């Protein structure tokens, strides 16, 4: 079985964001990049599925800058058999063009299971899996936190507002992975060494025109400096007064 895992390189979640001079992107110097947190669950799930199936090929793919070689090497150290880096110099924030480019690659290299993270923590788009699935004509379940794969089908669970949904879906399918699906394990030295011998293909991405154009990227207006209104339970009446009459929140 062929399994594809989609990976995105994003700024570390504790990065302070600075806006670049163009007013449309972030200043990247001094920023630590890493593999998107949710993609860790996707990658680990690919490894677990391969273990379950006995025989499977796991290909990790990304559309990103040349520097994403580091993250792609990382996927090889953590279970991917092969990595593909489709290079672009621009920040890919537009879900439609990314999905189109990924779907073109997957159509040429069909997979039974395509795993994504729930959302990339840069543009916070949360749209790739279902966007991609519709373009491929594949089944799809998003934000999955429990998965049982059978022959030609699978059952997945996901959180919805105030409840959990149990969904059945046919394969081939795109699945987006949420926290709780598995416990990603770090690579060990042996697998890091072994990764050096695995193939990492690199070629320019063919991204169609974006469906959205960036007008501006700005820092949000700072919240008004908060105030500490007092100490201990004695401050409760003052809080109630402020919530009622100033904030009009209760």
């Amino acid at each position, binding site marked *: 079985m062929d399994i594809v895992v989609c990976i995105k390189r994003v700024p570390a979640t504790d990065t302070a964001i600075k806006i670049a001079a163009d007013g449309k992107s972030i200043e990247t110097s001094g920023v630590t990049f890493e593999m998107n947190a949710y993609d860790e669950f996707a990658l680990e799930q690919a490894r677990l599925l391969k273990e379950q199936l006995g025989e499977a090929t796991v290909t990790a793919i990304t559309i990103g800058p040349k520097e994403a070689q580091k993250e792609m090497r990382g996927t090889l150290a953590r279970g991917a058999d092969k990595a593909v880096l489709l290079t672009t110099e621009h920040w890919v924030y537009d879900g439609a063009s990314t999905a189109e480019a990924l779907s073109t690659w997957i159509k040429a290299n069909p997979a039974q299971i395509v795993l994504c993270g729930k959302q990339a*923590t840069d543009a916070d788009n949360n749209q790739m899996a279902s966007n991609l699935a519709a373009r491929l004509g594949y089944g799809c379940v998003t934000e999955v936190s429990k998965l049982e794969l059978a022959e030609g089908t699978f059952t997945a669970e996901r959180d919805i507002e105030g409840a959990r949904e149990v969904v059945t879906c046919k394969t081939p399918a795109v699945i987006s992975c949420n926290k709780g699906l598995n416990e990603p394990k770090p690579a060990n030295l042996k697998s890091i060494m072994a990764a050096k011998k695995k193939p990492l293909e690199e070629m320019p991405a063919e991204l169609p025109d974006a469906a959205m154009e960036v007008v501006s990227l700005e820092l949000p207006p700072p919240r008004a400096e908060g105030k*500490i209104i007092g100490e201990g339970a004695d401050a409760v009446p003052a809080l109630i007064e402020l919530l009622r009459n100033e904030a009009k929140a209760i």
Partner: protein
Amino acid sequence: MSNIIVIAEVREGSLKRPSLEAVTAAQQLAKGSGGHVVAVACGHDLDAAAGELAASGANKVVTIEGATFAHYSGDAYAKAVAEQVRTHDGAAVLMAHTAMGKDLLPRVSALLETGVITDVVDVTCDDGVFGAKKPVFAGKATLTVKATKSPFCATVRPNNFAVASGGDGAEIAKVDAPSGDLLSVVKEIIAAGGDKTPLQEAKVVVSGGRGLKEPENFKIIEELAAAFGPGVAAVGASRAVVDAGWRPHSEQVGQTGKVVSPPLYFAIGISGAIQHLAGMRTARTIVAINKDADAPIFKVADYGIVGDAFEIVPALTKAIQEVVASN
């Protein structure tokens, strides 16, 4: 005509409130585009929901009904909705940014060969060009885009637009759901015990963190939430307590949890790490209770009380009960 389509979400017969907020966003766009607002709902037995939509101010309501649509199927709903967008000459398509909205609208946009922008907090239509604003980098920046393909598709963040109301009863049209092969279908919905208010729809979120010391102590958090009365408040949690197994992941607020923007948010025994702030910094009013006066949460809180949660929270619960009783 440049009509604005709203995909309404109906679950187990009831229309979800964020769909009515999406109608408000659609009305904002219709003012700019000069078109009508058409609400489209998929499901089975949609009379009640259709009635509510018709009274919301939408100009037309289309229901796609049938046994095959009794349970959500992303692929089947998407095809049926995309067809209605074409039929009604949709220049823009909006849906609430809920579990269903995030799943469905990207598919619809792909079938319509256009883009989609998710989790938007504002939408615009100037000279026929659609645009939107959304928080990116976990709320650390705001992205403004304009659409270069048509139709313009966007999911709208809940609790951000007012609920639409005051329509005088729009025309309701019924379309039969297609019978046919579904790739995916919801088999079961397991309710989270009791009649819990969904975190993202709650008017008040009361979150607790590691400062509560033991999972059992979340009782004081639950009691404070309950004090607001039924259906008002939901309990949230920091990642530290979710990772420790004290609370389910469905309650996690933050960059790798849920993003909430309720009118009122309480952070209790939560330090205010950047990843937590990402999930709640857009709440209208933030209250922090922490024993450390230097905790970063006080930098974003509108009102802070320094001290022991175990002393302050029960007193606060009592005071809230009194306010609610007197209202």
